[in-house]
């Protein structure tokens, strides 16, 4: 990953973002190789944003088939792609978003990819996976210093969960000019310019299996599952929905709403019992809001995840540590530390 200088064409194309995050960040993006697992509603938003940011390469992995439902929420598809593999179907439109990025597709299921497959990337972004796959891929990434982030949208609800391991980064802090000085005539003069200082920081991320324990004995230390101490209830909603996916091999569907509501309520009882969650705070009526991938919610969560990818790869700006939860009622988006 040598620092390759940007060409004039790249400098022109990325001008506005370079003015925000600086040329060093752009050069780090330029060297980044990203694996994106799942290009459905949320995945297509993430793909768009990181292609536009100017990474070196994007590999899109999805073994799904284009259905009518997919067509309706994915702007990277078109009518002709009905029935074909999703990753291949998005190729043309995705590439058009940024011809400078090397874009490749994978149509195999992620479970069939060997461990070493994941080690070649700078960062892996996963959507739509079971907790088993999330934990597996994260542990591979941990062993080879590959950053990892995952997320999902369920109706109006969305989350992202990152494992950037021991993440070192810096942020620019702008110091405002010290007070206007006054000359003895009383006329203000000589305000010095704003100065920017680089502040180095470090955050430790817990592995994904500390956040999504796959078995009972794995329940974790402080500020976490076991203890309800100030844990945002949306965390349990996330757990609940992932558990639904694990058990049913699919997400809750509006077409089988009554059945799925029943299943969701059962899982809710179990989670409330297991973690002593306040029942009033994890109410059943939220289930009316979690069906389907709502496109504007995908836009919000896809924006958040892509921004975290950019922060992770460029080692600049404070990233979300480690969970982001979007409130499905008022769209308040908060960071929650779980498992650390």
């Amino acid at each position, binding site marked *: 990953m040598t620092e390759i200088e940007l060409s*004039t064409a*790249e*400098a*022109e194309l*990325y*001008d*506005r*973002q370079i*003015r*925000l995050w600086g*040329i060093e960040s752009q050069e780090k993006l330029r060297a980044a190789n990203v694996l994106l697992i799942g290009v459905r509603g949320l995945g297509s938003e993430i793909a*768009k944003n990181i292609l*536009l*940011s100017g990474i070196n390469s994007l590999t899109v992995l999805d073994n799904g088939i284009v259905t*009518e439902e997919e067509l*309706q*929420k*994915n*702007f*990277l598809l078109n*009518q002709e792609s009905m029935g074909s593999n999703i990753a291949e179907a998005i190729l043309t439109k995705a590439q058009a*978003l940024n011809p400078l990025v090397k874009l490749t597709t994978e149509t195999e299921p992620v479970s069939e990819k060997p461990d070493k497959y994941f080690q070649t990337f700078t960062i892996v972004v996963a959507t739509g996976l079971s907790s088993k796959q999330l934990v597996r891929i994260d542990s591979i990434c941990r062993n080879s210093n590959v950053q990892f982030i995952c997320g999902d949208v369920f*109706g109006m609800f969305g989350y992202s969960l990152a494992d950037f391991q021991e993440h070192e980064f810096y942020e620019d*802090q*702008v110091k*405002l000019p010290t007070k*206007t000085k006054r000359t003895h*005539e009383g*006329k203000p*003069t*000589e*305000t010095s*310019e704003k100065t920017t200082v680089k502040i180095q*920081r470090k955050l430790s991320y817990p592995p994904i299996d500390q956040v999504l324990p796959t078995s009972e004995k794995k329940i974790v230390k402080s500020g976490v599952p076991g203890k309800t101490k*100030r*844990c*945002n209830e*949306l965390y349990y909603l996330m757990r609940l929905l992932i558990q639904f996916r694990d058990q049913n091999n699919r997400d809750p569907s509006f077409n089988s709403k009554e059945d799925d509501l029943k299943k969701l309520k059962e899982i809710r009882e179990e989670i409330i019992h297991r973690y002593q969650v306040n029942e*009033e705070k994890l109410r059943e009526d*939220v289930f009316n809001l979690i069906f*389907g991938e*709502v*496109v*504007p919610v995908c*836009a*919000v969560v896809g*924006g*958040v995840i*892509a921004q975290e990818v950019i922060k992770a790869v460029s080692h600049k*700006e*404070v990233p*979300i540590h480690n969970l982001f939860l979007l409130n499905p*009622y*008022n*769209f*308040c*988006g*908060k*960071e*929650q530390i779980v498992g650390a």
Partner: protein
Amino acid sequence: MSPSTVPCVLTEKVREIIPTSKILVVGAGGIGCEILKNLALSGFADIEIIDLDTIDVSNLNRQFLFRKEHVGKSKAMVARESVLSYNPNISIKAYHDSVTTQEYGVNFFKRFKVVLNALDNRAARNHVNRMCLAADVPLIESGTAGYVGQVEFIKKGLTQCYECQPKPPQKTFPGCTIRNTPSEPVHCIVWGKHLFNQLFGEDDPDQDVSPDTADPEAAGSAGLNAAASETETGNVQRTSTRQWAQQSNYDAAKLFNKFFKDDIEYLLTMENLWKTRKPPKPLNWREAASHEGDADNSIDSVRATDMQVWPISKCAQVFASSIDILKEALSKKEFLVWDKDDKPALDFVTACANIRGHIFSIPQKSRFDVKSIAGNIIPAIATTNAMVAGLVVLMVFKVLAEDYENCNSIYVRQKSIHSNVVIAPDYHLIKANPKCYVCSPQPYVGVSVNVDVMTVKEFETEILKKTLNMIAPDAILDGKGVFVISSEEGETEANNDKKLSELGIVDGSILKVDDFLQNYNLTIGVNHYVAKEKDDPPYKVVADVDDLKPSVENGQQNGSTESSEEKHSKMEVDGNAGDDDDDLEIVDKPDEDDPQEGTSSKRRKLNPPEDEDDDLIMLDDP
């Protein structure tokens, strides 16, 4: 059109009306492209889009409906085609036009269920705000700047309007700071732009670049008196800079020596200016061209030419070469317009600003930085735009459900170690300001102006149009029935050059102003005012008469009433702040949302770490 694209989680009622709800998107830039996509994939099937802009290469990193081959084409038209390519079953009408023209009157706006602003400038935002108030159509206003953004719901009689809170004024610098005593790089850059306009642009007497002998700080300088009397008798100073440059055939060495040697030497004669300041050092052409101590920097990479500060010899060389190109361009036109994207124009300003910086011992800037400052570029990125546009359409769902009580403003913030909130909704709707000069029942504004100096035409352009954002105002002098200004061409032309007092507009006069297009009536109370200090503004417009008195708080905090404005101002330099980029929002609450304000102690108080309130964000909302 398959109705199943409507999100299944919405209520039956909303799902039913989405396909037939007519939506107007104003602006097809960064946020506009994202909004269009979200609408088209959420079952909206009757969309209109208006934008007067064309596509530029620097848009392509975020305005994802456009591609390289679209550069130069209409944003509205290309956005429409691009959306139709993945959803051909909906109706999108595109207008390549300015929303502020007569075609788009109140009846045009009345046709829409909701209007979505995705604009890049305050004037158009103000206008659409008034149109939506007049048509009584709900408006969702949005904007981003870098990592921050916001979404705001505006509905007549229910919330504040876009103009309820006075926006921070655009930053300007006193003329004598620019001409005599620059102390920051931005002063030199503004001076460079003024010099460009003096040499190649349209004549503007406010953009003089030569030493300002009327600087009150310089008064009493012995050398000045001698020099000033010389000026009065009519030496070279009398001819305009432009004429002189033409007579010199734009000879680079001559121009250089005048601006960087002779004028600086003249400034040195104003001794009082340099009692507390480091005096400037004049630089002549020959010295500059062979400036010592300059590293050889001949690598032609992006980094070297754009990101590094040029040595003085390179500045001199670029000064000369850009003048040659600009002179040639000028020979085909009456005048040139400064444009940050025009390379010779930017080169000229970069060279001039840095030579002047060198003379005044002010840090120099790279061309990249000069472009940011001179072009008022507010950086824009895809991710923030995506988040904001998502939140806009989620708010549309609430508006269609008439769930107005929950249409609180939402702020996208930059993550910091002090806060765990990235997307922050307000807790309640913000009520209208009862003194708002736009949405209150009897809009009133006080204008302080020198009635013996300002002409009717200046009043119309500077105050009614530029400051109060009217498009086609009519003005009548109350009580006397005198027609002062008419929007009908030719009707009041005879008044144009008259001073206000000649038409009987004096201290205490009341003007009834009416903008037919905006359906907006405003009463203006005139207050005769004479600027005392040289840097006093030529006129003042005050919505709340109490604001005329400096507020105690500001006085204590900053020691001057002006600095509260400075605190809020962004990188705006002169005049046209915000015209540059799409998506720009002058964020209403800079103390909360502007990362540049991050180190001020005031922000900490307003925006404490939110660890405490986790329990507030629960699932028990209505």
